[in-house]
């Protein structure tokens, strides 16, 4: 019975369901939370769910991670496809950079306006 659990297709369905639930959790966080920190946090949750889905759906049971280390110079057959790994690596880096930048903005904004709640941000818009 355990054999069936070890197939790639089963792995892909688990990954898909898992990332979809994380996606919805993050989405609910973004849309309902009022605190700015929590919004940006749930945004990064949503991103990470995408990464998880992308990597997970490219992984095959029984293959090794495409890491070039001591001794192995080339990506050969029994390694998983390296391209998505590289893409997600850069995207994670970008995600972190964006998160850092947004949090600095939130801190500065809080220091200046003393307000963290997104609905009370009324500086912009048509001044009647």
């Amino acid at each position, binding site marked *: 019975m355990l054999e069936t659990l070890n197939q790639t297709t089963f792995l892909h369905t688990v990954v898909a369901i898992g990332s979809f639930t994380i996606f919805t959790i993050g*989405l609910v966080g*973004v*849309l309902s939370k009022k605190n700015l920190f929590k*919004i940006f946090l749930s945004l990064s949750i949503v991103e990470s769910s995408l990464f998880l889905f992308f990597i997970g759906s490219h992984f095959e049971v029984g293959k090794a991670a495409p890491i070039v280390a001591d001794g192995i110079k080339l990506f050969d057959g029994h390694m998983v496809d390296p391209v998505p790994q590289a893409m997600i690596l850069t995207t994670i880096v970008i995600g972190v950079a964006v998160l850092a930048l947004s949090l600095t903005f939130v801190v500065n904004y809080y220091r200046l306006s003393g307000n963290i709640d*997104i*609905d009370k*941000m009324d500086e*912009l*818009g*048509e001044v009647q």
Partner: protein
Amino acid sequence: MFNFEITALGNMFFGLTVLVFVSLFFVPNKHRSVTLYSLLFASLACIFYASDLITLFIGWEIMGWSSYFLIAKTADKQTLQKYIVFNIGGAFTLLGAIILIYGACGSFVYSELDFSAVPSGQVTAITILLLLTLFVKSGIMPFHYWVVDSYSQSNDLFSAVLSAIISKTGVFAFILIFFQIITVQYLQTPILEVVAWLGVLTSIIATFKAINEDEAKRLLAYSSIAQVGYIVTILSIMGSLSLEAALYHTVIHTFVKLLLFINVAAIIYVSKQHRFSTLGGLLYKYPLNFILLVVGIISLAGMPPLGGFSSKFLIYTALLEEHKGLLLAAVLFSSASAFLYCYKLVYGIYLGQPTNPKTEAYPRIPLRFYVPQILGAVILITLGTIPGVIVPMFNGILGSVGFEPVLYRGVFVLGSDFASFNGGVVIGAFGLIFVLILLFFVRLKNRSVKPKDRLDISYCGEVPRADVNLHYGYGMGRELSRIGLIKMILSRSSHALWQRVSTLFGDLSGITQKLYTLSAQNMGLVIFAFFTILLYMGVK
């Protein structure tokens, strides 16, 4: 992109423009904006001599916004807004029509446009769009909303240009596109019947509005609307005599309005007063101005000895030949009552007792004001005596536009075989009789006695006090509103219509504006909602 071509039609209109601009060059003018005036002149030349629709449109637009900047120096915000929205709207309908023509005939150059293969639905669309442009430019009724304010609030020199030349560009476009490009056989007549009646209704309502007006320049603005309304009516009759009548009336109206506007400008320059209720009694202070104004109003009302009559005569004969009895009756109604506001103009400014006693303090009118007036007066008098002199020119235009020329019987006679009159005899007889009676009067031994002073009038034995305002003749025409039919005409106003349109757009923009002040979270909500909607539509 710019290509020009000298045509007879272009020559006539350009000739008028040159005459008006050269004569107006002399008038003293506070806002000396030479660049804008030269730009306007160039755009007018571009319109009249264009040989393809794009050059015509370029000239049209430049004229629109260069006159906007000329008006912007003196008019207030609402007038400017009304002016530019209507004119740009008119220009965009013209652009729409040009694009439609391009879609139908595949080119912009006049000579290559032939409408034989074009489906009639498209021709009707083109006609309606062009008629809208014409209505806005010549101020036909629902679209005249901007005319009166812009004419009266722009500076005096420019309101003369506006009323003399710029209102004629609509007429030029009508003749050019309907007669020369689309040519008569492809045009559907029912639309033009409606246009004729719209032109007449405009002139009737404008005439009675003019009679009710207390400000000199607004009165002249309404009268321009009325006169251009005649031209539009006659043009839409689509006959060769009616085209000649329209061209004749265009020439006459240009010089009449040039004369009248500059005359009123001279008075405003000297007395700083605009309204009849504060003017009056300037007859013996500015006699030359008065005589020129009388010449102006005689031809504005279309009275026999002067030029105005020849164009009115042609309009009546054209309508009579086409057996358009009811239309002619309406035209007669408005031209008969036109006489009222002509007299109001003369009485309000020159005749009657002066309202403010210190009219002696008014300075002398600078001589430069008289150049355009004398030009206008001379032309009107010559057209009165020898009305046939410009008929060959019109025949040239008629030929170039594809109509057979009108009967030309020498310089003095004007009209067709239906009815014609001899201008020379008419003015000669008038002059001769006037001189004879004058001689008889002077020969009488009846000694004429000068009254003691201004107030020595027979006033039931009383002496009117100096501060009593005796000039209440300026309010003439107000009693017309007691007459049922005229009260109904005067109650028409397009103000409410355009006000509703602008508030509609205002509220609409209020709603859309709220959309643009969403917070980031609501923005996220909108994005995901949009995503799910499209997803659902895709799945279905």
